[in-house]
């Protein structure tokens, strides 16, 4: 104790106390922030597990399978009426040897899943076509949402036989209606919006 320099010991005790109080207040604020931020939302793996283009009656149809980041909290939220939006983007590019790839077609398909509390049904709506589907359970609704079957995307004539093309599929998911400003403010909380990586495969008609 004797080794403590005199100038340190001569600092007013009030200053030290005040500094300590400030630090504790900051820590409390930080703690409350992190505590509040631990809201339950999207959780888990989100990716395009598989995708392919199938030629049927002269039209390429997209089949895709997604892993959705929905856990129990999201399922609970869905059952309470929180909407879930899915956006599927398909991008087909012609592969060029020395030049950057050139875009051939781009398609964005949006789906909207929401529970109707009056009918106790899950309504899955295709925002592009306006078609909707009524599903009895959240599992059925999520299963329906996670797979795309026979979505016509491209006419066969748009692809030149013998050429090589690259198809990319990516999905974005939005849970709830959290404003973007709030999402930006709480940028470290990744629970309301996710984007998958591009799923890419080569296509050669």
């Amino acid at each position, binding site marked *: 104790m004797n080794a403590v320099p005199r100038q340190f010991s001569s600092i*007013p005790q009030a200053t030290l106390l005040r500094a300590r109080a400030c630090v504790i207040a900051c820590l409390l604020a930080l703690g409350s922030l992190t505590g*509040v931020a631990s809201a339950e939302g999207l959780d888990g793996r989100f990716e395009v597990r598989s995708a392919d283009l199938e030629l049927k009656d002269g039209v390429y149809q997209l089949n895709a399978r997604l892993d959705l980041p929905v856990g129990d909290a999201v399922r609970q939220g869905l059952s309470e*009426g929180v909407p879930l939006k899915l956006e599927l983007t398909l991008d087909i590019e012609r592969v060029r040897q020395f030049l950057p790839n050139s875009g051939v077609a781009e398609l964005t398909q949006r789906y909207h899943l929401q529970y109707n509390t009056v009918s*106790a049904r899950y*309504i899955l709506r295709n925002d592009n076509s306006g078609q909707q589907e009524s599903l009895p359970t959240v599992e059925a609704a999520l299963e329906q949402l996670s797979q795309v079957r026979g979505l016509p995307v491209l006419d066969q004539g748009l692809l030149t036989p013998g050429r090589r093309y690259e198809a990319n599929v990516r999905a974005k998911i939005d849970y709830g209606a959290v404003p973007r400003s*709030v999402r930006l403010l709480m940028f470290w909380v990744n629970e309301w919006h996710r984007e998958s990586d591009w799923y890419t495969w080569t296509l050669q008609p």
Partner: protein
Amino acid sequence: MASRKRLVYVDTAALVRKYGSTVLAAIGIALWLVALYLLSSAAQNSAAFEEWLPYIVVINVAGLLTLSVLLIGKLFRLLREYRRHAPGSRLKARTVAIFSALAVAPILIVYYFSLQFLNRGIDSWFELEVSQGLKDTRELSRAALDVRVREFLQNTEAVARSLSSLPDFDLVGPLDRARRESTALEYTVLGAQSRILATSSDRPMDAVPWPATDEMMLQVHRGRPYVSLDTDAQGGYVIRSAAPLNANGNPGGRVLIAMYPVPEQLSELADTVQRSYTQYATLVQLRQPLKSTFVLILTFVVLLSLIAAVYGAFFAASRLVKPVQDLIAGTRAVARGDYDTQLPLPSRDELGFLVTSFNDMTKRLARARVETRRSQQAVEAERASLAVILARLSTGVVALEADLTVRTANQAASAILGVDLEGVVGKRFDETVSEGDLYQQFLRAVKARLGTENMDWREQIELLSDSGKRVLMCACTTLPNDVGADSGVVLVFDDITTLLQAQRDAAWGEVARRLAHEIKNPLTPIQLSAERMQRKFMGSMNAQDAQILERATHTIVAQVDAMKQMVNAFSEYARAPELQFTRFDLNQLITEVVDLYRAQDSSADLKLQLDAFLPEISADRVRIRQILNNLVTNSFEALEGRVGAGIEIETQVVEDAGKPVVAVVVTDNGPGFQRDLIGTVFDPYVTSKPKGTGLGLAIVKKIVEEHGGRIEADNPRHGGARVRVLLPLGDSGRLLGTREPRKGENRRERV
């Protein structure tokens, strides 16, 4: 112009240095406040501010960081000054601490309660009553619809039973009839593989009936009727039901699918319930993010407010402490002696009054210092002039402190006492030890008086030196002191030997003149009377008487002659003849005189040591010859009967009182002057020789003084007597430029 530009530049730089950080901080705080306002708006209305939000956040964070860096810098600076014990640092630290505490404590309290209100306020939105109310509403809606749903299902089952017996091709008519009889929107009968067997719709334009879902078909094929409340694409509600045509259950058999409308009012109510429920669910989901956002914004505001408050505390403390720091620095400067310190006037408050008083004080101090310096300079000048006067004074002055330490002594004192008195300055006068014989005698004489109480005295002190008796008139006076304390004494003494000698000489001159006048006149009649008496009575006397008379008259005449000679000598001494100054070579005159003596008397060895560069002097040649004659005669008489007697005459040019003079030194190896007579050898009638008249050296001295010279007599340490005559060069004396030896002149002559 250049200097003016330079001045402007310096002023601008000083202004930037002085107010730069403050202005920056003010701009930063203003920007930050605007950003905070935008941020709070953004949290409430995302659409308008989403685009700006990243920038707002960046500005806020940058502002926060900038302010934090500024604050940390100020904190470190304050800590450094505090440790260094810089003037005003403790006061500043205390002021900052108080201001910060005053500013921070309310902010923290507000922050704490704001957090509480925020959490509780948002939570209160989602109170159980609201949630339960919504649930009850939902249940009520469902119950209201369930009645219809069940009615429609029963209706569908009834229609299905009525159609079950009909063949596929005969279904259309009964089906259409049944639809028209009911409120159904559409009836469709599906066969195997979900093939449409018959359909009837109130929307004839819709060619395609509503599709059956897998769920529906699966349930019906299991033999259970299906009914559900669905929404259509327009947002309205419809009731869909399905029932097998074969009541016994026939998987893969025909199925009646019916779609009934929900009344518009009921549909709208259901839609409202659904919207409310959805909004509530969304709000529930937003609860935590909103809380987090609000807490984040609040924390941002509080943090920045805290930092701004502490920064403001620093600013206020600096403003408050600055005059105090200036005062401390000014006081230190004054303590160092810098009285020209003037402090800038901070304001017209109490501190300003203090600073003004300080400035007035320093002005007065500066004025007082100037006056003191001026007085000091005057005193110094006075002292310097006094020192000059003392130095030029022929009177010796020795000033003593109260403890008899020698304070000062002038050159005349040193010259009179024959020692360098500068060496004893600072020492006690009665403890100084000096080699000087005269000084020791003087010290002994003075010591006896300094010990007495009466320090104001005047006394004649006689000292014995090699050149004779020296008489000093010494006066001691107590130095005055302002406070009346004993501040020392001053000894003033003068060598009055010469004065006394002059007085004696004058007295002897008067005696000689009177003797010449009173005695010489009767001598001639006495002589004549004796000679006449001899001539007259010589012839009439017998031989014996005549012989007696002759002897007597002869004695009278001889004694009268002797008396005449003596009176003539006195007359010569008393006479003040007209000097005939001519320029002549002293060496040559000495040589002539010596040659004469060499021719007459060879009892002593006469040696000459003459300066070959001796200039001609302007003097009375006859009188100078008399000086030489007297001195040589005196030496011969002193050496009479001595074996190896020798006389040396030396000439040289020496400095006396800063002027070149010719010195003629006559030295013999005789018995020397008697020590008790050495101070009076130049007085008349002072002689140690049996035949001397006692006027020889007195006449010599008189002639020397008539020429403006000086004469000294002493006994050299190796024995004998030495007389030193110093003669001024006169007008013709030219030392420089005539330093060539003259032809035929012997530099050293031996006889």
